[in-house]
């Protein structure tokens, strides 16, 4: 029995990284006495997967996890039982029963929507709409991608599907729809950094607020939220 749950990650819990978050859920699942299935072997682990890890420090209202249970459960009861055991800031919003044959979320996810906020002095404020237009009109947007062993230059232009921006108080807000998943994954901070650079403004990663709104998969060339996606 497979289920996909949608959850929210906000408040202090945003400072818990992905690996620790998985452990937080594992323990909550045990406390909630949910009939979770385990893998075989000497160190059996719970059959729980997450389609797309969220970077430490980011909040989200569109996170997902997929569970395999040993028996069927009413989806509301499942969400309710788990919610009672979650720490402050983690809330299950919705659930969807999947088919045994369903492809894993981490394979199907291809897009993610983000809202980014970055403090901007009034004096630095620009006509964001036209700047975004110019920014997107470039044939390539190169960023430095750092892995453990090397730095490489990557063109992220293709992966920016939609981009909008406006002022909110002393902040620049960017609404982004970006390529996500195993084929191409555009990190939202790359877009903010290269956009600010394009505008001639400074960037410091610790000032950036990242909020993920949802994850999407493609069905018949249309974007569908994972909340409703079954294949």
């Amino acid at each position: 029995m497979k289920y996909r749950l949608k959850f929210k990650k906000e408040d202090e819990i945003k400072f818990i990284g992905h690996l620790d978050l998985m452990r937080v859920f594992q323990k909550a699942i045990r406390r909630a006495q949910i009939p979770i299935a385990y893998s075989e072997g000497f160190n059996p682990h719970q059959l729980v997967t997450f389609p797309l890890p969220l970077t430490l420090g980011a909040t989200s209202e569109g996170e997902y996890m997929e569970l395999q249970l040993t028996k069927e459960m009413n989806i509301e009861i499942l969400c309710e039982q788990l919610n009672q055991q979650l720490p402050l800031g983690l809330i299950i919003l919705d659930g969807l029963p999947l088919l045994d044959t369903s492809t894993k979320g981490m394979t199907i996810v291809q897009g993610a929507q983000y809202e980014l906020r970055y403090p901007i002095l009034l004096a630095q404020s620009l006509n964001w709409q036209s700047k975004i237009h110019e920014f997107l009109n470039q044939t390539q947007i190169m960023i430095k991608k750092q892995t453990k062993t090397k730095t490489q230059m990557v063109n992220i232009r293709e992966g920016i599907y939609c981009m909008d921006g406006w002022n909110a108080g002393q902040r620049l807000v960017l609404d982004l729809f970006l390529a996500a998943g195993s084929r191409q994954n555009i990190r939202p901070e790359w877009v903010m950094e290269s956009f600010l650079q394009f505008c001639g403004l400074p960037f410091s990663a610790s000032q950036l607020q990242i909020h993920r709104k949802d994850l999407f998969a493609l069905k018949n060339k249309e974007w569908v939220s994972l909340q409703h996606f079954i294949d």
Partner: protein
Amino acid sequence: MNRRVPDEILLQVEKPGRYIGNEINMVRKKKEHIDIRFAFCFPDVYEIGMSHLGMQILYHFLNKREDTYCERVFAPWIDLEKHMRKHKIPLFALETQDPIQNFDFVGFTLQYEMSYTNLLNMLDLAGIPLYSEQRKEEDPIICAGGPCAYNPEPLADFIDFFYIGEGEVMLNQILDLYKKNKQNGGTRHQFLEKLLSVEGVYVPKFYKVSYKETGEIASFIPLHPKAKTKITKQVVEQFDKNHYPSKPLVPLLQTVHDRVVLEVFRGCLRGCRFCQAGMVYRPVREKQVDQLLEQADQLLKATGHEEISLSSLSTSDYSEIKQLMTALVHRYSTKGINISLPSMRIDAFSLELMKKLQDIRKSSLTFAPEAGTQRLRNVINKGLTEEDILEGSKLAFEGGWERVKLYFMMGLPTETEEDLQGIAILGHEIVETFYQVPKEQRGRNIKVVISTSCFVPKPFTPFQWEAQNTYEEFMEKQRLLKTKITKRQVQYQYHDAKLSVLEGVIARGDRKVGQVIYEAWKQGCVFDGWSEQFHYEKWQEAFKITGINPDFYAHRKRNLDEILPWDHISIGVTKGFLKKEYEKALQEQTTSHCRLQCEHCGAMIFKGGVCYEI
């Protein structure tokens, strides 16, 4: 939530989850209903402090009181400390994120000597004067307990009062006294005076130490009519009825021990002569199997942990270990719960258990012979023979194991070159034992890892009068052992002895040593137990500035009639017993364990445990 450290800073430090609280089973209280705010401080990082059972016990013990809110504080890692100092963020408690400067109590647990600079640093970050005598009425009362409090003297100038022994016994009485004193408008001096009538409490300012020209203590005199000449440690006598937290905190971050801990018993029967824990936690007091199984069940449910471990000083000595382990394996091994085997003696029973629980190819056997020859093992009263080790290894090799770890100490009293050579010989014999097992029964490759640590003589052990080896002696011994290990299957692990020598100075230090700790902190020392943060040259500078000679504390053999800095503390076990044990050690005579024969160590003054088993 009024978080103390803003996002922008938390996003720049390693593991920000250390500073946010909000863990599962965290206690939440309304501050308006609280009379006593207690900051329980662990002078090391979050992941270490949160793995400490004593903190879990006392946190929930104190929070059982409706009038008290006990919150946790850990040492911020150096990255956050820099930001805190720059932005003037005071040290805060995790639960409410309030600065601890305004709390009633700030209590430290002293787990190892090399955390003392962290203690000073935490007081400083909190904005609390470091020296007791500089504190004002509005400052919190600073207290400390834990194993290192058995020699409180190096911290005597910084701590308002020490609690000697197990916190569950007298903490309630102390808090009651505090509340009453506060209600009556009493001063901190008056409160500390009142504490003089509480058993197990040591208030350093009511004692005066004077020294001989040689540096030894000339006298240790109470300055107040109520100040006791001996402060007796407090132990829970009815241990099976003792409070144990049923809903322990479950961290959101991975900690050192991410598991349920069942406390099986306190104390140790064995009486190894180098071991402070074996003396200060006497007498052995056990819980019942039924009680433990019930607690296991409840703790697993309340935490959601997937691993359970037993805690004690020597788990194989639990009188019903077979029943307990069999029941735990029966109940949990099929439920996705990993049972971690604590330091158990390797024999047919434990090997059988391990086969059920672990992947043999990946696990290793651990022995702690501590010394290389039977002679030296007799000196230290370590009742593990070469035969035990080789027999246990043989059984294990027949069962498929192929990795063995051996732990030894260097610099033990009476140690000779032959004893060091004995370490290598034992390693080689284990390799030979492996090859004596028929090929079809044994694994493919044998690997033996020998690890040595440097012996630090500790207070309240029979070796408390002994001289510690010098740095040069330790390093020479390591070099020698390295040349004696010739088989390629044997690997040797050792580490620099500087930290051990410093630990030796502080462990048996007197009040004067406090100046060195203070000076080292001023030089920038923190997290000395973390090798990458340890700066020996700063400590050397601190010794130079204070004019204190480390050799006097570490490398000097004491006379048996010398006044020791911790002589005003009583652990039940008498000085006479320790002297007798010391003499027997030098004569290479062993002493049997508590259940075989009572040696009248003195722990019988506590009304419970093994001393009263029939």
